[in-house]
């Protein structure tokens, strides 16, 4: 598969995730959109890593897997982020019996 194809898929994934994060009112769906954007970025990193590997191979073996390592880091961070995000959503639900983001405006003033 060519690099272009993978980047197009990643861009599409990012756009879908962005739409979900910006347009949906349910906090859980917003979190899901954010996860989609994470994965789009991961896909880009892995694709790019694979793409530049033949050039960096000649110089330093340790740089070959940079893109993949990055992706692994982001997966770990994303897991933590989801845990935290869901925790906040739970707290919000307990407080207002709602997960609608347009209702969460108590901190405005």
């Amino acid at each position, binding site marked *: 598969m060519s690099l272009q194809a993978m980047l197009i898929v990643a861009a599409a994934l990012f756009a879908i995730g962005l739409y979900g994060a*910006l347009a949906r009112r349910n906090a859980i769906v917003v979190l899901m959109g954010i996860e989609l954007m994470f994965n789009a970025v991961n896909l880009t990193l892995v694709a790019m890593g694979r793409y530049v590997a033949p050039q960096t191979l000649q110089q330093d073996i340790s740089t070959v897997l940079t893109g993949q390592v990055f992706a692994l880091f982001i997966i770990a961070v994303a897991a933590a982020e989801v845990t935290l995000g869901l925790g906040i959503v739970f707290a919000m639900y307990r407080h207002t019996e709602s997960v609608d983001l347009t209702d969460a*405006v*108590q901190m405005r003033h």
Partner: protein
Amino acid sequence: MVSEPLVWAILLLPVLSFLIISLVIRPFLNRIPALSGWLLIGCLLAALALSLMTLWAAAGHHVPEFRQHAWLSVGSATIAFGLLVDPLTAVMLVVVTAVSLLVQVYSQGYMKGDPSYSRYYAYMSLFTAAMLGLLLASNIVQLYMFWELVGLASYLLIGFWHHRPAAAAAAKKAFIMTRIGDVGFLIAILYLFFQSDKFAAAGLNAFHIPDIWQAAQPLAAGGAILGGAALTWVVLGIFAGAAGKSAQFPLHAWLPDAMEGPTPVSALIHAATMVAAGVFLVARFYPLFLASSAALTVVALIGAFTAFLAATMGLVMNDIKRVLAYSTVSQLGYMMAALGMGAYSAALFHLFTHAFFKALLFLAAGSVNHAVDTFNMTYMGGLRRHMPWTYVLTIIGGLSLVGIIPLAGFWSKDEILSGVWGSSELVAPWVGRLTFLLLAVSVLLTAFYTLRLVILTFHGQFRGGGEKEREEAGVVAPAPVSAHAADSHHSAAQPAGHGGGHHLAESPMVMLLPMLVLGVGTVAAGYVANPQWVHSLLGIPGHWITEFFHLGLEEALSGREAHLAVPEFSLGMAAASTLIALAGLALAAALYRGRGAETRKDPLERGGPVYVLLNRRYLVDVLYENVLTGRVFYRAVAGALDWLDRNLVDGLVNLTGLVFRNAGRPLGLLQTGQVQFYAVALTLGSLLVLLGYLVLR
């Protein structure tokens, strides 16, 4: 043989006294204030001994070249500090330490019972130390530092009784007026700093005083480093500083007001420290002055004009200290005129003798004040019966001021007059003639106002003293701390038997003794330091002090032809000046002797508008205070700045506040609390940045 530490000690002893009094005695031992006086007297006694040693060594050419200690280094300019002991310094060291010592002894009596006794002696230590540092400085920056310290100390001492508004104002006036002159001096130093590369190229240091002397002289290859118009301006800058300190014409107005300080301070200012510093500065840079005929002309004319102007104002003053103050201004004018006419050693000789008799006259004035509790001569009179010693000493000092043989003033004034008469190679002939004429007329005026002072103070009937003055002025009599009578706090310290006012009696011994010493100096100093007509007197060769000064100048010029001769004593000139002086004395005697006991009217008041003009001091003070300060400065300059501040600066500040206060309201509407609205804004913003990057790349 003097060594470097010994010479430094002359400066450091008063510094030490200042530190001990202000850091130890005043905070911890203020219950025994006499300690501070005796400490300073002890330090000055030691300093005087060391100064005499230094003079002895300098007279025998035993003064070594002292080391210069590096202080600062800026580019090619190195500022060092060190000692410069030449005949000028050596003689002045003795004068300053001796006069200061006597004044301090006198102050023990005069300041007795003052609540700020220790503070007084701390300031006095600082004053003396600053003057000694000024004399010893070998570097122009070092000299400038002590120069400003002298100014500061005089400010503190003139305003010593700072609770009196007049004293505070006088201190401020003295400080600001001398500072105007100092700007010229500072500009001259800055010019030297910018020329330091040129100096360095010739192997000289732009701040080292002997190197500056060198720089004014033509080099073998071509012109001097300092020459032409630049030299003239540098010299005039230095002279501006000197004119401020020595109260020469446009800047003379501060000295008579400086009378608000304690009388011993006045004696010190007028005899040895403050005003002598100006003449010393001109003498210190005299090789530069000699290289510029224009500058010499300015110095001579300003000096002569000041001598005349101040003498005329002295004629009509009623405050005994003001008469003496104007006489000081006048005598300093003599010295400056002599310097301008090339009579270098005569001017310094006069500075030397003047220190004795002027200190004596001021201490006598203080002694009179001690008795009658006022300085206004119209309330004195008849004191010679009560204060015989003060009377005799005032006569001696006064006749010396007039220039009557054989007192000190006679010898030096004669040297000045014959020097001005003789040497006219340095300046145009008309300058010499005008200078001589003004100085000769001033001799007459000096004689007149001196005898007027003596008659008003000591002859006739007693006219009531400070008590009566206060009574007539409408002040409640038994108020010893009234701001009106100058040194009135004394009355509080005195036994109550005199009703809190005057007590017509001779001053205590501690005050008389210094006056007696100065009186002996006034009688003898003129002849002993500079014997005439003999080969040597008690081991002092003929014309010793003038030859000594001249030698110092020749060394400074390092062999350059000076066109200067040591003025010889001239019998004709002596006879002429004595005749003029006697005429002045006779005139005063005719006008003031045998007036009615109670009359307070001055016969000079018949002069009408001339009397008013003189009494108002030619309106110079009015010009400075009302027109220059009041109108021009406060109204015009300060008014314009005030308008700018109110409208322009404040307007800008208010505008800034207005913009942000009102811009906040619409911006606040953007904060909705909708998280997703913020996210949309962020997204659009990043897209915009990305787009901008792609387009403008």
